[in-house]
């Protein structure tokens, strides 16, 4: 991690970890431009083929009705800007890396609307690193995704950065906050 841009690191770690989250978000929120409109319903998978085809999996639902949807499908609300293998299918969960991997400390983020409460949540798409491509549940959605000139809004990067290994296994989608305080 010697080559890190320390400023970027500190900022993104703060965001990703949720530490000082409220203050960072408020601070960032003041700068928000309100450009993109996040659609309420998830759109279709992108044009990457599914890995080893198989029977459709039984759905994996959270126990919380306020977090609706099947976390093994690309249509689950939190995946609105994800790109990669869904860790839920790889031995992890929607916000936990599979055993034997290391979660990237820095990441890209998306803003996804939860259809159950109508709130826009900031989602941290951390990559799980150190094990080769999971190969299960490949998903690419791009709501709010912007060109590589805006790294934290771009899902084309391999975010296995600051980890012992840059080898990519899968991606999680963790809630790190509500987009704007006034959305409550």
């Amino acid at each position, binding site marked *: 991690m010697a080559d890190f841009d320390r400023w970027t690191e500190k900022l993104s770690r703060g965001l990703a970890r949720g530490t000082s989250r409220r203050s960072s978000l408020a601070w960032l929120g003041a700068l928000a*431009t309100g450009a993109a409109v996040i659609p309420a319903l998830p759109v279709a998978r992108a044009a990457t083929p599914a890995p080893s085809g198989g029977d459709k999996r039984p759905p994996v639902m959270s126990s919380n009705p306020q977090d609706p949807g099947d976390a093994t499908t690309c249509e689950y609300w939190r995946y609105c800007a994800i790109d990669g293998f869904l860790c839920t299918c790889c031995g992890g969960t929607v916000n936990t890396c599979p055993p034997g991997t290391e979660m990237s400390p820095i990441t890209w983020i998306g803003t996804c609307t939860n259809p159950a409460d109508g709130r826009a949540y900031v989602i941290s798409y951390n990559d799980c690193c150190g094990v080769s491509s999971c190969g299960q549940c490949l998903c690419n959605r791009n709501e709010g995704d912007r060109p590589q000139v805006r790294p934290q809004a771009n899902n084309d990067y391999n975010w296995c950065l600051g980890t012992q290994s840059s080898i990519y296994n899968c991606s999680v989608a963790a809630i790190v906050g509500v987009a704007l305080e006034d959305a409550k």
Partner: protein
Amino acid sequence: MRTTLSSLALLLVSTTAPAFAKSAPLPEEAIPSVATLPADYPASWLLVHDFHFNALLDGRIAIVDTQNEKLPLKAQVRAAQFANYLLSRGKREIYTAETFYSRLTRGERTDAITIWDTATLEPKGEIVLPGGKRQLSVSYTGLFQFTNREKWALVANFTPAQSITVVDLDGRKVLNEIDLPGCAQIYPTGDRGFASLCADGSLISMTLDDKGAVASSKTFEGFQDIDRQPLFGMPALVGKTAWFVSYYGQLQAVDLSGAVAKPLPAKASVGTAEGGAPEWRPGGWQVIASDAKGLLYVLMSPNGREGSHKDGGTEVWVVDPVANKRLRRIDLGGLAGSITVTREAAPRLVVSRPDAKVDVFDAQSGQLVRHLGANVGANPILLVPAQ
């Protein structure tokens, strides 16, 4: 303002909340967060070799919960380039024997055993294997085996000269290399020894001293007739007795419990049946398994003929080898390539299909219990129960 500050800021968009109930928002979630496994894997779990034909240098061990039809894949462990693997229940460690190149496909070759913790799947150590001679072939259990009560491992080499490297797993070092010209596969015997099958049809059994050198060697001529009854390389173990099955369904046993292997006179057969074209024969990759009662399960092809022995099968025939009696036939409802039987209280017959799907049957009734789908890996060719 050319900074990432702006890029972060622009992500946060103004949204107006529609008319939803004013519940509290979902809480923020702790990251980083990495799952762990139970250090002792349940009897329903398997270590599945995903051989990954389309990227052989990037094979994996899939840790699979056969009771979980939603999420059968619990984790993946690296198993690079025709790897082999072992699980030590006592030491709570997984061992992979692998091959690496400094530039993925070229450059300097390194063979090594990596020791992985069963709970965290983090590497705990590595033992480099000298000489770049580890046998690379489609996955057989007999290429990497424990001996000396799991303190040591034996690694098969093939250059094509054949030898065995004796490794002290606990001491993290290589002890010895044993030349074994003309013989293949390792079957551990007694406390500190192994047997192997040789090109003239003999079985050889060696005991090792405490330095890993050969202490004694005994050859049993005519153990198998490679022309008329060649044996599949991977036997099923009933206790310490290895049951081999031939290309034509003959069953042959070897007692591995003592210091020296002992071929048993008892022979049996999977039997015959109508409906084959031309006949029923064992077929597949991992074609024989046992249950806790000592029954054998053999994957059978209805299209048995010369060269059909890896074609896969559509039925499993259950045989009591001691009584030399076939007890039942299980219809798999389609082709399977590998089979195993778990040691669960209600034992399960697990089969992998050519399309990478895995299905679980009740070993007793033969009824389908659940589909696991093609959700554990690209090419699940070896199914090794965790208990």
